[in-house]
């Protein structure tokens, strides 16, 4: 059966891929993820002090960028969404821009060793996930063939990152490597928990703010007047330039 994750993937994948528009949605999100990885790998190629690793990171970045384009192109093959919903619009915009990635590059946040451990783990998970899709036959032949090509690259990514980690181990940094692998392993559920908490917080504050708006703001509506359109003169309030510059309002 493999890992619990693999078992879970085997259970849910057929259902997930059977939903209407699933191909387009999944492929678009894969494209976005791969594009994000490409940006991070390029940053690693720039930031690393290990000159021997620079080319590997660079090639990895090129692979990810290519995968992103392949996924995006294939997603577009499935046609535009039929309904002009917000989700459909967001999806269409994602495909137009290849997605956006947030935050500082992972390499800067983690450092070399932990970054490699992260790459190795993420790529292994991708190999597992894509492998399950192919094994279950949930993909159409063209997407399946494309994924086969991508999987070859992903295997290389697992291989070189794991090889580099083992080299660090041979260089006497075995305990650091083990620690980095453990950190990477536990970070994922921790971040998932944090994301979940943030969402809950977002919903709760959203509810409170809506209530505030409906109950507290309402009376002030009677006093609110929009300014008339057109030009209005701006007069100085007498503050010195420095006093003006210090004020936030």
């Amino acid at each position, binding site marked *: 059966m493999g890992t619990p994750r693999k078992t879970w993937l085997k259970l849910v994948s057929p259902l997930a891929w059977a939903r209407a528009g699933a191909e387009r949605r999944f492929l678009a999100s894969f494209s976005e993820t791969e594009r994000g990885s*490409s940006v991070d790998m*390029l940053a690693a*190629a720039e930031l690393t002090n290990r*000159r021997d690793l*620079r*080319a*590997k990171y*660079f*090639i*990895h970045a*090129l*692979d990810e*960028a*290519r995968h992103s384009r392949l996924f995006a192109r294939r997603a577009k093959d499935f046609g*535009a969404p039929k309904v002009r919903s*917000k989700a459909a*619009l967001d999806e*269409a915009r994602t495909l*137009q*821009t290849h*997605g*956006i990635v*947030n*935050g*500082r*590059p992972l390499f800067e946040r983690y450092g070399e060793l932990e970054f490699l451990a992260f790459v190795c783990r993420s790529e292994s998970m991708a190999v597992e996930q894509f492998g399950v899709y192919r094994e279950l036959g949930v993909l159409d032949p063209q997407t399946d063939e494309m994924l086969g090509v991508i999987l*070859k690259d992903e295997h*290389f990514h*697992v*291989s*070189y990152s*794991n*090889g*580099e980690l083992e*080299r660090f181990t041979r260089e006497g940094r075995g305990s650091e490597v083990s620690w980095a692998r453990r950190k990477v392993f536990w970070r994922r559920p921790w971040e998932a928990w944090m994301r979940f908490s943030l969402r809950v917080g*977002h919903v709760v504050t*959203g509810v409170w*703010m*809506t209530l*505030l*708006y409906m109950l507290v*703001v*309402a009376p002030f*509506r009677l*006093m*609110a007047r929009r*300014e008339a*359109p*057109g*030009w*209005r*003169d*701006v007069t100085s309030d007498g503050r010195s*330039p420095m006093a*003006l*510059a*210090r*004020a*936030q*309002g």
Partner: protein
Amino acid sequence: MATWVLGISALFHDSAVALLKDGVVVAAAQEERFTRIKHDAELPVRAAEWALAEAGITAEDLDWVVFYEKPLAKFQRILVNAVAEFPRAWRAFPRAMQAWLGRKMWIAGELARTFHVPPQKLLFSEHHRSHAASAFLTSPFDEAVILTVDGVGEAATTALWHGRPEAPHVHPVSEVVFPHSLGLFYSAMTAYLGFAVNEGEYKVMGMAAFGEPRFMEQMKQLVRLDEGGGFTLDLDAFCWHWHPTESFTPKLESMLGPARFPGSGFDPSTDEGKRWADIAASTQRMLEDALLHVAKAAKARLDLPNLCLAGGVALNAVANRRLAEDGPFEKVWVQPAAGDAGGALGAALWVWHDVLGHPRKKGAFACGLGRRWTEQQVSDILEDLRAPREALSPDMRLVRAVDDLEGGGVIGWFQGACEYGPRALGHRSILADPRGADTRDRVNARIKFREAFRPFAPAVTAEAVHDYFEVHPALEGPVRHMVATADVKPEHRELLAAVTHVDGSARVQVVHRESDPLFHALLTAFGERTGLPVLLNTSFNLKGDPIVDTPVDALAALYSSDLDAVYIEHHRVTRSERITGGDLQPEPDGDGT
């Protein structure tokens, strides 16, 4: 001891920094160039780190840090608007409060922590004042009318300023306030036409040339030009003032027909394509008419011969030309970072001149204010990446580049410091021979991966510009920065097919020897070989990416597209064959799985 002022713009789009040493710009860059997130809005931490390192100082050496707008004034506008729009702003209100109470209200503290400066060194400009300062204080004028036009700042959406020879140099006169906004009107129409807001406005401008403005009657209902020189929008057709994500209402669709779905193809020969092109043309014409209307009112108020323009709308090169041709001003000035990125520069300049009281020292505005790379750094990177390359002498660099271009090649040109602002002006450019429409199609389809209808710009030497283009005399400044269009002379349109838009215009860049000697030399060398000192010049990036900033970015673009070669400083790098993972198996001492 030098005085250091760091300007920062952030938290909306295109965050950036600009660092002044005794009033002179020593470094300026957008955060997107560092993070590779297009239009990155986050605090420009990496750009600031680079700027300080470039200047050889630390945060402790900074005398002042100035944010480009006043957060509390903006928050006040959002609150007042939410009240005025009760109850239909009920979805926008919680989102705005989460963003503001969760972060933006406390930006002063965050700035102090992030940039390691004590709170007493923090200053705050105003959004439109920053724009105004970025335009006037970089201009060649002693005195001018300044117009700032964009989406919205604190409350103003359009503002008139008096640029004066003495302090305060940037003096407020009058303003139009939210929600009546020409910038938001154009952005809403951008969304209606299926393009991303704050990104696709150029596409609307490009699409407009394919159409006729036959929807002007509807446009005049949407944007009414008032007698006093102002304008009033039909707020029932737009919803940016109460909806959290959308910008237009069903009323707009009832007036103009169904909106274009993002990502749909565009074929102006079809009825549907023609309708979109006509709507784009009408939108563009309406914006131009409104700007002219506003400019005439500004002229009537201040009666000065020169105009400085800034704000996102000032990046509309077609409108800038119309202002010059049909407007009341003798000279127009637009600097290349006219959008929000330029707010960092404007805020810093305002502090130096108007807050600290230092007199102006006018000089030519140089756009190459970003990161640059030494020969050694470039060599090391190319060596590490095992890129096929040849090192060239300065003369041979030009000869080989002209060889490539004349042979039909498309090259990446990565030289000196990266440009500040959205325009690639010969430091981070993709260049090609402008002769033949097939070059344009190839660059669009196989290098930039973008829509076929979008035009490319030409770069031309200052000596030859009037041989090929009809540049309005008022636009001498803006055409240096590719922020105004001109007609290609009819007899050269066929020759310059790759850079002539469907309406015969081009967004020309005029290159002067004294301000950009290397790019000028390349154009001259190409002219000597072909008789045509003109090149197709487009930004060095692929679709969805910011302009390249580092040699690694440039190589990634080379390997991810159909570029023929990249010139990184003195190195010509080619893509003899595609690198794949198989070329770089783990080292012999690694036994990866």
